[in-house]
């Protein structure tokens, strides 16, 4: 549905010149960025930097989905939102920041929770899905929906001083989230940022890495994060690259004989609510 070589305006040559002189980008790469459509699910600590650097790089269409409203307690890490925007929908808040930076980008705002009833319809409108969410049920939901719609899923997460990023369901042998984690963790072992805390610049780094991965996927510049998990620990400046398993032929969703063929009830599957709001004592 996307044009692969849209024309660039003169103003776009001027704006993107410093990245178009990179040999792996050039005019074809910039045209691919303009033709690309990317969906960010989650407009928080990961979504803010990811949106900003994707918009700056010239991604043509940026979908942003989030049902939450900006709260004062978000502003230590969700740096696109503003004090004046407290109470505004977060996806809308990001779209306004993107419009200030780069009016060439078409923002599609979904001020709603992505759930099993709308996920396939929303995801199928975009080339690449970026998981910037904050809870286990939505991570399984996005994984299954990405597999079912054939989209790669650039998945980031952050907590305390640590972050993780990988790309699921990419290429012939890239695993999906369920290939790694067929069973969800016990709900009482899951900590979110509200309970465990997070240093804001950690999702900042992971969100930037998500933007970098998307740009690499779109332009074809260098190796992707398929079958590779990057781990970041800010306390001791550790960056670790881990080699991951291949796609599992017996995976329930991306395997050869999938048993999950329509999106199930993820709250029930995970025993947890799809929300940032803390509901239980957390241990890990």
């Amino acid at each position, binding site marked *: 549905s996307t044009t692969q070589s849209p024309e660039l305006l003169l103003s776009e040559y001027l704006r993107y010149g410093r990245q178009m002189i990179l040999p792996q980008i050039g005019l074809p790469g910039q045209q691919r960025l303009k033709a690309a459509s990317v969906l960010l699910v989650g407009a928080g600590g990961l979504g803010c930097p990811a949106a900003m650097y994707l918009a700056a790089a010239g991604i043509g269409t940026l979908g942003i989905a989030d049902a939450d409203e900006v709260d004062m307690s978000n502003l230590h890490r969700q740096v696109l939102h503003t004090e004046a925007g407290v109470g505004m929908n977060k996806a809308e808040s990001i779209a306004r920041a993107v419009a200030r930076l780069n009016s060439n980008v078409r923002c599609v705002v979904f001020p709603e929770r992505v759930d099993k009833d709308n996920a396939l319809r929303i995801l199928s409108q975009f080339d690449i899905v970026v998981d910037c969410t904050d809870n286990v049920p939505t991570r399984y939901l996005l994984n299954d929906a990405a597999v079912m719609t054939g989209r790669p899923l650039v998945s980031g*997460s952050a907590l305390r001083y640590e972050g993780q990023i990988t790309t699921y369901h990419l290429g012939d042998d890239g695993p999906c989230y369920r290939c790694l984690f067929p069973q969800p963790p016990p709900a009482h072992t899951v900590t979110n940022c509200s309970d465990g805390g997070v240093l804001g610049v950690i999702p900042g780094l992971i969100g930037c890495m998500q933007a970098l991965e998307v740009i690499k996927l779109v332009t074809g510049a260098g190796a992707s994060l398929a079958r590779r998990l990057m781990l970041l620990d800010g306390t001791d400046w550790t960056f670790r690259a881990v080699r*991951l398993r291949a796609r599992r032929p017996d995976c329930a969703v991306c395997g050869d004989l999938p048993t999950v063929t329509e999106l199930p009830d993820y709250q029930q599957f995970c025993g947890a609510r799809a929300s940032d709001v803390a509901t239980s004592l957390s241990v890990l």
Partner: protein
Amino acid sequence: TMDVTVEFSGGAELLAGNVKKHALTLPASDETWTMKRLLRHVCDNIIQERPELFLQGDTVRPGILVLVNDTDWELLDELAYEIQPRDNIVFISTLHGG
């Protein structure tokens, strides 16, 4: 004996006295040090509370990924893997925050 390093991250270190890196000397024995045996040893010697949040039955609980020398243990026979001297074994709890 055999010296290995055992690390915890992503929050799993909270089960291990909040210490991320542990130097471990595995006692010499006739029995092979498989990963299965190591898990039990770690549970008995390093895990300080709530062992059920580390092990479920013979293996790690859902949501913990096991790495040997920066490689997913699924590529290395998982529980049957034979520990080698100076192996670096990481138990990583997956993060979900954003």
